[in-house]
């Protein structure tokens, strides 16, 4: 991008959507001047982005694909709960980008800080800019800091969210390890929608597993901003059976909503003024699409990204495809599995579009495993398609593990959970856990 373009980038964002269709398209002429199979920039190297980059290359190696991801090593959120529970090392959630490079993806370890969807270019923090024919955003989530009074980035250094894998996860584990026997682990669980619907409750299970074996006099208090949660009956059956009365879950309607946090004193205040004190305070705040999505102008008033479910192209901005947790893809949950599945559908649609062909029918599935103990796993599954322009869960499909399943069934699902992780990690990054 030349200097003039750089100067006008913000102004360009400002007029986005106001330009006439013809005017917008005319400005693309210089970028069409080089005949090629097309170029795609993918922002974000998680489950959605890495998968999209890989599957575009697999479907058409002639397409130029650049993946922009700040981290050289990506740590998945899935299975960090098992690390917190002492079942895995942190490095088992680490993945790199060697396989993508071998496939011919140009991997750039930089931060995308500006997107000009009019000029179709991405500005990197390091100074370079990248132009694209099609852009894929897989930005994950960001937090609504201060939506809970007193809970900002600084407070998170004392009361970790650990809802993005990395230093926050390590901090939570360190605090749990340092917690005295007889202490209280307090989690503030988030309102919908948020990343990984069963995640908070698997974390509670894994913390309980650790405490039962190491600090059995301790308590776990879950203050929830909602009245129900994913796989609730299965979790609560498991909690009662394995952890007795260690875990107390307080729903929204029983004053479960945390409205204020004092991170230094590790206290929280609920909607109706109850104060709770914790030894370890885990605040999972309300969420929205990752910041770059907002910057690109693809989010709506909810803070999330509406998409055409057939292709996962933004419904607001042409040639920008958005996958993963940032999207509004109900009834699909915000899971790594779904992000990967959406990445594949977007990849196929992009490859077809660059060849002048229509997108084929979209199809998605999801399976989320959660552990209650190392040998007791539960799952929720779904199969999704597009009908009448809307994503739907196929009637009669999906759902949670049977409530009356025997221990062999639970053990199998625990094993399948680990097998799932290894399979999807290898599918996404080429490395297993």
């Amino acid at each position, binding site marked *: 991008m030349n200097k003039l373009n750089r100067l006008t980038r913000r102004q360009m964002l400002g007029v986005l959507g106001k330009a006439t269709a013809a005017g917008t398209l005319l400005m693309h002429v210089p970028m069409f001047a080089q005949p090629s199979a097309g170029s795609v920039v993918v922002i974000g190297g998680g489950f959605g982005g890495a998968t999209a980059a890989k599957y575009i290359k697999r479907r058409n190696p002639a397409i130029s694909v650049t993946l922009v991801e700040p981290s050289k090593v990506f740590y998945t959120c899935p299975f960090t709960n098992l690390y917190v529970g002492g079942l895995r090392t942190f490095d088992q959630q680490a993945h790199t980008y060697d396989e993508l490079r071998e496939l011919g993806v140009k991997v750039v370890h930089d931060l995308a800080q500006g997107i000009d969807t009019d000029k179709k270019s991405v500005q990197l923090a390091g100074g370079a800019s990248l132009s694209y024919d099609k852009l894929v955003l897989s930005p994950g989530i960001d937090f609504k800091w201060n939506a809970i009074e007193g809970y900002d980035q600084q407070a998170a250094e004392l009361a970790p969210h650990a809802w993005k894998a990395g230093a926050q996860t390590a901090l939570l584990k360190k605090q749990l390890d340092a917690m005295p026997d007889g202490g209280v682990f307090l989690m503030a669980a988030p309102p919908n929608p948020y990343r990984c619907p069963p995640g908070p409750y698997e974390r509670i299970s894994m913390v309980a597993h650790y405490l039962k074996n190491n600090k059995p006099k301790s308590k776990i208090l879950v203050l929830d901003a909602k009245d129900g949660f994913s796989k609730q009956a299965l979790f609560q059956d498991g909690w009662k059976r394995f952890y007795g009365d260690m875990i107390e879950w307080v729903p929204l309607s029983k004053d479960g909503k945390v409205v204020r946090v004092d991170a230094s004193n590790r206290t929280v205040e609920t909607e109706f003024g109850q104060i709770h004190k914790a030894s370890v305070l885990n605040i999972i705040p309300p969420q929205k699409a990752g910041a770059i999505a907002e910057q690109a102008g693809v989010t709506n008033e909810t803070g999330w990204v509406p998409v055409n479910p057939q292709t996962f192209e933004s419904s607001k901005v042409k040639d920008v495809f958005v996958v993963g947790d940032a999207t509004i893809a109900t009834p699909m949950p915000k899971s790594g599995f779904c992000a990967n599945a959406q990445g594949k559908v977007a990849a196929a649609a992009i490859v077809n579009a660059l060849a002048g062909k229509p997108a084929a029918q979209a199809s998605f599935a999801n399976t989320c495993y959660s552990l209650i103990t190392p040998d007791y796993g539960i799952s929720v599954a779904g199969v999704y398609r597009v009908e009448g322009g809307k994503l739907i869960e196929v009637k009669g499909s999906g759902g949670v593990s049977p409530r009356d399943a025997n221990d062999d069934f639970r053990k199998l699902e625990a094993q399948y959970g*680990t097998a799932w992780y290894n399979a999807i990690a290898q599918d996404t990054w080429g490395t297993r856990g």
Partner: protein
Amino acid sequence: MSLKSFKGWQTPLAAVALAMSATMPLSASAQSVMDASILAGSCFNCHGTDGRSNGAIPSIAGRPQLALKNQMLAFKSDQPPAGTTVMTRIAKGYTDQEIDALALYFSQIKQQAAASQKDPQK
């Protein structure tokens, strides 16, 4: 779009026409076709890329088409085989036509990747 307009695409008007026609089909979902490789994409997430598993979940690549089809239909039935966990919930999400397409797709993939692929173990 004719070849002729491709040749003239550096003129502004043709560029407009090209850009518009290239994106129009994306919204024409009513005419979209079934693509077994898209249906199969979600299977990879547990059964491994191309259906080649690296763990406890069975590989489905290169198995006989009829065996794959019958297994999926058994999962889909109201009396799935003993020991079935999640697959009965997943198989119910696919039409018999889609199951046929998936069975054909995975039966045509070689059980092992080409020898040039490196060991995926870290």
